[in-house]
């Protein structure tokens, strides 16, 4: 209840801080990791490039993971089918981007961005609508039963992946980046890839938008209260089910957005791409603490940065670095960075 009280009683912009003042420690992890990497890598340009790559990847993972963690926090529902929305989002984007190839190839960055924006709108609308159906048909009958939830949402994932094969064919689809955000900007010795900057920008917009909604609106207040104690919110006369459907749809739409971004990053789409990245998403939400947006953000940046740094320093260790990070964090805080609130 701490958040609720502060954002209502004091005029301070509470969204800057996750919870109690003493709990700011995890926020320091990301800058600490970034600074620690500098002497290890040695070369400044390489460090900048890797950091940017890590931030971009982290932002994309955050976009995909944030919806999942909120859905879990609010209703104790763990959606293993979340990966399907990522894949479907990316494939929906091809419906816009492939016919609009002329816009994508144009030398005008605004046309490029317009095409991507349109693709994002289509993907988010599509996955959002699908999320509504998924919630009704797949998730609703198994509220409160974890075992069945995992099984049924896995089943939903299998069906969704197969439907992608049916609708888009079994072969992989190439999704080239538009000319405007291809390549890199070179400043001195430092090369900054344009698409990564773009991804960081989109991620920041999503983060800020989400924090504003969660902390400055009545809806956000209800969602946060629901994460803290859903029975109490219900007892106060709010329809927690409707709130949950809304969050589920929003989370699915965000997964769709993440899928578009991830698809453009990979430049090749396969039906299983969502499930591949889901492994990272799960690690991120475990690290962050199930139900916490801030924890999810920090977790996503940590996982992605660490993957990029270790990939450069010790490629063999990079494979296990995420697992190692998860183990260390869980040894420190068994519920994840900000996982104390939920049961």
């Amino acid at each position: 209840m701490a958040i609720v009280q502060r954002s209502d009683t004091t005029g301070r912009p509470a969204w800057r801080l996750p919870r109690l003042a003493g709990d700011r420690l995890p926020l320091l992890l990301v800058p600490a990791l970034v600074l620690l990497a500098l002497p290890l890598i040695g070369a400044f340009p390489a460090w900048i490039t890797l950091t940017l790559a890590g931030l971009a990847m982290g932002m994309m993972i955050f976009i995909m993971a944030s919806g999942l963690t909120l859905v879990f926090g609010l209703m104790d529902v763990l959606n293993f089918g979340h990966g399907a929305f990522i894949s479907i989002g990316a494939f929906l984007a091809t419906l816009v981007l492939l016919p609009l190839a002329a816009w994508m190839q144009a030398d005008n960055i605004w046309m490029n961005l317009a095409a991507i924006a349109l693709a994002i709108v289509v993907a988010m609308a599509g996955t959002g609508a699908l999320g509504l159906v998924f919630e009704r048909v797949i998730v609703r009958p198994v509220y409160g039963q974890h075992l069945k939830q995992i099984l049924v949402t896995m089943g939903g994932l299998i069906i969704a992946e197969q439907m992608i094969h049916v609708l888009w064919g079994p072969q992989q689809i190439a999704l080239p980046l538009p000319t405007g955000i291809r390549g890199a900007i070179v400043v001195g010795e430092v090369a900054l890839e344009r698409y990564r900057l773009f991804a960081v920008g989109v991620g920041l917009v999503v983060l800020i938008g989400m924090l504003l909604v969660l902390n400055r609106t009545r809806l956000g207040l209800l969602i946060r209260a629901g994460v803290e104690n859903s029975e109490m919110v219900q007892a106060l006369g709010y329809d927690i089910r409707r709130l949950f459907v809304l969050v589920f749809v929003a989370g699915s739409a965000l997964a769709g957005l993440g899928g578009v971004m991830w698809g453009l990053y990979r430049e090749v789409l396969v039906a299983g791409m969502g499930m591949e990245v889901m492994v990272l998403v799960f690690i991120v939400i475990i690290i962050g603490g199930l139900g916490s947006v801030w924890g999810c953000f920090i977790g996503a940046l940590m996982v992605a940065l660490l993957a990029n740094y270790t990939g450069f320093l010790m490629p063999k260790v990079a494979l296990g670095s995420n697992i190692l990070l998860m183990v260390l964090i869980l040894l420190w805080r068994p519920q994840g960075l900000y996982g104390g609130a939920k049961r």
Partner: protein
Amino acid sequence: MLRALFSGDYPRSRVLMVLLVLVFVALLLAPFLFPGTRPLNVAAKICIFIVLVASYDLLLGYAGIVSFAHTMFYGIGGYGIGLALYGLGPSWGAIGVGFVLALALTAVLSALIGLFSLRVRAIFFAMITLAVASAFLILASQLSGFTGGEDGRSFRAPTVLQPGFRLFDGEIFGVAISGRIITYYLVFFAALALFLFLLRVVNSPFGRVLQAIRENDFRAEALGYRTVVYRTLANVLAALVATMAGALMAIWLRYTGPDTMLSFSIMIDILLMVVIGGMGTLYGAVIGVVILVLAQNYLQALMGGVSKALVGVPLLPDLLHPDRWVLWLGVLFVLSVYFFPTGIVGRLRQRR
């Protein structure tokens, strides 16, 4: 005698009994009833998967926890045997070494994962096993100098198990007793023994405690059972049996590689088999495996025919394309979880 073999847990349904006897006889006499390489391969795959799926049922159906690392342990068994035979040459000693090392690795790994993730929340277990298993898969395909990478390793079995070996010159019912058939019977009897062992486990006091924890872990804990210990033990036991199944598969295939041993699609197959066959009834593993393996090998042909007949109709040919058989099993899977969570076996038992 029969009671001791089945641990007092009979099929409890006449139809099921008939089906099980049919499967048993078919598998027992497979080399003589269905001569040829392909049917024998299908039969061996059924034997091995029955063990693998039954051990998964111990986790999912009896202990009530979802693991995505079952293929990892299966793969450890496969790679243990495979790499030992590849590195040390075709001998029984190599099989022994690989087997023991694989079991040791599995025991340590499964105990660590169990203690680490089951301590906090059971739902962590599903996510953590998924993460660990995918890291293991990447590791196995990346360390190509050791594991053979994506290509895997082909190796030779000890002389007795080689296809060219003949036990004696004559034939039995027109079938020469080759090393292949000896291998099949090794697989068959090992699988049978492991299945009966699992039946023994789930009907032991230990198995009863697992079921109590599945039904209500809070109450079980209040009664004085340490749920973490029991669940971890169940995890270790299931993982060890999965490792043995993987070892059998490697001996049968004389090959080990990431696609046949570790891939995520095997995990999905296992899930489908357990749920469609019937969770919490080991016999469900038998039914689920037989249905899925037969579907894999024969349903596809049927779907191909129907799909061709429907060319011209929009979408339908694609929906019925032979490669889409998983789609229909996925639908069946979701429907099973909702409407008959005890699967086919549970259904059969209800109507007696």
